[in-house]
């Protein structure tokens, strides 16, 4: 645990507090929240529980899209189903709330049909790597130009706290009342092995790092992936007796190990064990769009050349005879 890390939250809090004291509070002179313009405020209040970390990630995302320099009219957000699946509906962007597990193939079609768009998939662990696991690995393999943010709260929260593909071994869920007896996915390792060009993991305690990782991932060509470990006090923490959302943040603070560039093979998350965080992969590989574009130019120029040479070989007078 580095010193800079332990200060992250308190810095953010004190910064917000100092902003607050400078300005009067009330309807007339109300402080404009810096992320408000990125939100569909008419849809508030949102559905997330007190202490849930999804809102924290949305706050980070709003700051990230402000910083990343992308034209917001060209930025599309695609979600699947679940608590995190509701993110798309709260963001003031072209937003798509699709079917369970299928945000990535939807995003693939969106991006390929208009490469000018910047496409972000924002969804939960169950959606992206259980029901959507096949799409996840193939999108990473293709290095398709889509950014994926996975909010990992270790369970299916929307449906009441069932075991998921990331629930740590021995943790309790409503469909694993005696403790999970299957190994969870190590998502950074999965993403890296399938070919993702950018892979990072942070917790919602690390708000600045999450924002920075989001900016980097959005600006990365090809498939980029950020996992954000998030409290779910209503279900995962309550059933496993891990305390409140605040207790969980304290736990993230004390048990995160920052290890940029470390080997993702050892980034497994055990029940109440250390969480390895950091930027694990940041490499440039030709993206799917670059590969297909190069191939298409090759194919069409070859065909045009064949057509031209065919016409040139044709005897004089044949052109007129054809019509």
């Amino acid at each position: 645990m580095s010193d800079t890390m332990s200060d992250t939250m308190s810095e953010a809090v004190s910064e917000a507090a100092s902003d607050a004291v400078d300005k009067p509070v009330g309807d007339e002179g109300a402080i404009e929240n810096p992320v408000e313009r990125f939100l569909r405020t008419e849809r508030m209040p949102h559905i997330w529980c007190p202490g849930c970390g999804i809102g924290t990630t949305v706050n980070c995302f709003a700051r990230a899209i402000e910083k990343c320099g992308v034209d917001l009219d060209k930025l599309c957000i695609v979600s699947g189903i679940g608590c995190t699946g509701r993110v798309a509906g709260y963001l003031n962007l072209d937003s798509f709330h699709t079917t369970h597990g299928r945000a990535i193939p939807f995003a693939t079609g969106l991006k390929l049909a208009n490469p000018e768009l910047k496409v972000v998939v924002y969804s939960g662990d169950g959606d992206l790597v259980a029901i959507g696991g096949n799409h996840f690995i193939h999108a990473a393999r293709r290095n398709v130009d889509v950014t994926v943010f996975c909010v990992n709260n270790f369970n299916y929260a929307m449906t009441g706290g069932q075991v998921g593909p990331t629930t740590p071994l021995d943790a309790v869920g409503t469909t694993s009342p005696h403790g999970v007896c299957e190994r969870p996915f190590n998502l950074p390792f999965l993403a890296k092995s399938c070919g993702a060009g950018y892979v990072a993991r942070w917790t919602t305690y690390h708000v600045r790092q999450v924002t920075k990782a989001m900016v980097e991932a959005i600006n990365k060509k090809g498939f980029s992936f950020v996992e954000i470990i998030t409290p779910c006090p209503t279900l995962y923490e309550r059933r496993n007796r891990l305390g409140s959302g605040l207790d969980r943040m304290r736990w993230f603070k004390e048990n995160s190990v920052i290890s940029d560039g470390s080997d993702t093979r050892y980034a497994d998350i055990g029940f109440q064990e250390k969480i390895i965080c950091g930027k694990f992969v940041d490499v440039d590989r030709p993206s799917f769009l670059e590969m297909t574009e190069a191939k298409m130019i090759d194919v069409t120029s070859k065909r045009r050349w064949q057509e031209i040479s065919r016409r040139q070989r044709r005897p004089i007078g044949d052109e007129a005879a054809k019509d």
Partner: protein
Amino acid sequence: MSDNNGGLSGAYFLDGDHACAEGAIAAGCNFVAGYPITPSTEVVERLASRFPDTGGTFIQMEDEIASSIAIQGAVWAGAKAMTVSSGPGISLMMEHLGLAAMTEVPCVFVNVQRGGPSTGLPTLPGQADMMQARWGSHGDYEIIALSPNSPQECLDLVIHAFNLSEQFRVPVLFMMDESVGHMTERVVIPRPGEVQLTPRRYTKLPPGEYQPYKPGDDLVPEFAKAGEGYRFHITGLTHDEKGYPVMSADCQGQLITRLVDKIKRNADKIALYHEDGIEGADVVVISYGITSRISTRAIRLARAQGVRVGHLRLVVVWPFPEDHVRRLAKRIDAFVVPEINMGQVVLEVERCAAGRCEVVSVPHPGGTVHNPQTITDAILEAAR
């Protein structure tokens, strides 16, 4: 002959699958996602080969689930999109057929039908997906389904399928079958200027005023594509005119009623059927797809024996031409309904006939087409 944009025109010797691919290109389709499956694979193979010339994008996805939603992403980006599959693949696509109906995405699902259920008869014909086409996804919704009976129609009608999908913002199912898909005949590809295309109904309203699901007079809302500053929200949840989810019986009532009515109220406009010898007929054969060609011979054989038999060949099967069949039922003795399934569209005929005339099913479990004599025998029996 090929033009500078890769479009072909003129007469060719093509099978139905290849003709369907050329029809899609002629319709302006520029995005196709698919997954290999017999007997539909040739459609995507031809598109994969031809799209570099026409400027389209083909992607072979990891499965049919992905294919059927990748095309919807592409439509929101402004593409004209299609997916192609058969039996098991179509079953996997059913959730996304519902998404396309719910979010009103104009697109085409091609089903080159084979024998089923399950893996069934991959290389042999069937027509047993007709009710799946109508009811296969969960919930209440309406779709349009067309059934071609020749390679030429695979081309002409897939263009019509795209046009209907744009006009009503609805997924259109293109119900081919293995026989039509693999039958090779003369196919005339029209010149680009000769093809009538229905443009997408893009909104002219500025961002801020535009509401993605505010219906027009014909109950169809205007379209906006992503990346144009509209900042719209699209969800498969029950939604209001703004596109925002609303979990209430009122909102459900308004939305589902409109989705159903926009097709039902326009059923007369959508209806497309061919009639032969209906006037004065005592018996009418109702058929579609490849079975309509078998029926033509069966009807000729029956007429040779003096039976007054007509032919109602459905080109658009869904929405079912209820009123027309009701009218006919009042003045004939019997309908004969041959189809390569155990009796699916015949249920609709029975519903509309409502006991006013006899309805005879001529089922076939699939694997081949009917022997025309079987249908002739049914006609003669019905006429007795």
